[in-house]
């Protein structure tokens, strides 16, 4: 028999109602922060970035595909990875299904990675995804938006990710945390190469032919965007994780679903 506290419907409700109140407060707080994001000042993007896409060479403006807003998911897939990051692949499994709705609400969602286009295309095909995925191979885009770093920056401890220096587990160069090592192995690369790419989300707006950068978020800033975690947060055992438990969606059949 379960050791968890059980109760009658009335006892359950007595706990549920104050939780509901707290949940409503959190929802309103989230709305306030969304409002604050919308009020952020914009920074004009003057640099002429070039990307490789399914349709050929593209500018940042082209990535908007006729919409006025662009969300870029900085998908960790460095030039030397053998496969896209398995963890990024789980967030992509969520947004692949709803990108069509955003595209019909004036928001183009695109992934951008530093691997050459052919690698992105092959991996996207393997995963069965439909969202646009551009290659920033050879350009400054990923470096300018703080999701790719040079070996030199890494060696000298000069990586600034999530608006701070040396504040993230992926910044460790000696004692590599286990989840980093596991993820690196799943991407078919070593920890140092793996962690020179980072995940993030950047928002841009196109107004009168000019592109502005409006917002970027990294690290746990992505947490609320990670569908699987928001569902697990509602399950009795919560996230129920120690280390990396997930695989790519086509790799699970190697393991019993439990």
């Amino acid at each position, binding site marked *: 028999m379960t050791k968890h506290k*059980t109760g009658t419907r009335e006892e359950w409700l007595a706990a549920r109602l104050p939780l509901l109140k707290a949940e409503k407060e959190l929802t309103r707080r989230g709305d306030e922060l969304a409002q604050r994001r919308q009020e952020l000042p914009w920074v004009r993007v003057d640099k002429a970035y070039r990307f490789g896409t399914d349709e050929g060479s593209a500018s940042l403006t082209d990535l908007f595909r006729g919409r006025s807003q662009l969300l870029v998911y900085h998908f960790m897939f460095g030039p030397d990875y053998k496969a896209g990051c398995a963890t990024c692949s789980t967030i992509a499994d969520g*947004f692949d299904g*709803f990108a069509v709705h955003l595209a019909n609400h004036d928001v183009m969602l695109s992934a951008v990675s530093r691997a050459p286009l052919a690698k992105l295309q092959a991996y996207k095909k393997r995963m069965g995804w439909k969202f646009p995925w551009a290659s920033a191979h050879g350009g400054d885009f990923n470096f300018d938006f703080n999701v790719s770093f040079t070996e030199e920056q890494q060696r000298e401890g000069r990586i600034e990710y999530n608006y701070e220096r040396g504040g993230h587990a992926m910044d460790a160069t000696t004692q590599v945390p286990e989840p980093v090592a596991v993820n690196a192995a799943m991407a078919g690369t070593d920890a140092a190469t793996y962690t020179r790419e980072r995940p993030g989300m950047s928002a841009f707006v196109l107004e009168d032919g000019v592109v502005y950068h409006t917002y970027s978020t990294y690290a746990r800033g992505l947490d609320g965007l990670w569908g699987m975690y928001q569902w697990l947060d509602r399950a009795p055992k*919560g996230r129920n994780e120690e280390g990396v438990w997930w695989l790519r969606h086509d790799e699970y059949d190697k393991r019993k679903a439990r």
Partner: protein
Amino acid sequence: MGNQVVSHEAWLKARLELLAAEKELTRQRDALTRRRMAMPWERVAKSYQFDGPKGALALADLFDGRSQLILYHFMFGPDWEEGCTSCSFWADNFNGIAIHLNHRDVTLAAVSRAPLARIGAYKKRMGWSFPWVSSAGSDFNRDYSVSFTAEELQKPVFFNYEMRKLPSDADEWPGISVFCKDETGAIFHTYSCYLRGIDMVNGAYQFLDLVPKGRDEDGFDFSMEWLRRHDEYDER
């Protein structure tokens, strides 16, 4: 729109202030998850029967060998030709991630009052793979406060944990109900949420909360007026 245009340094200053507030929100969200996990569980004594592709199923069967079950109350009434457009939006969100939840001991399934044949046809049209059962002929939807009779809707009903007057034709509502099964096979109801309680599991809205126009639904008669089923948008 037409926000102030500034240098990167000035933007960064505003961004860092917002970042501090965002981190606080993330921690508050974590705290609520812990509170949810600490909720008492309510024993489910009643037996419910569902209709699945392989025949009749008990609530215990819906766990599909796992100990946790999340049911999405998908609005699809007995006489409806199609599933609800908004619920279809939510399903487009979770269809791709149900497999990951399976590997954390969670089965995610949908349940609706429509007959199974109609559910099956709609699921096929949408190209979804999550399990979806029919609760036609069972009290399940009514007991978990997502379906109401025409007679009940004449008066205030208990919905989203309060007595409220719902529109008299609004007989189906969306929500999430969560269940746990212990090693003896006893089933417990752990959690349910409705209305904006299901907001966080719609990733698209969380993404829209990052862009300059936000959810951008103010100009409509109802918030999701812009929304279509994914096969109903014009190609752009």
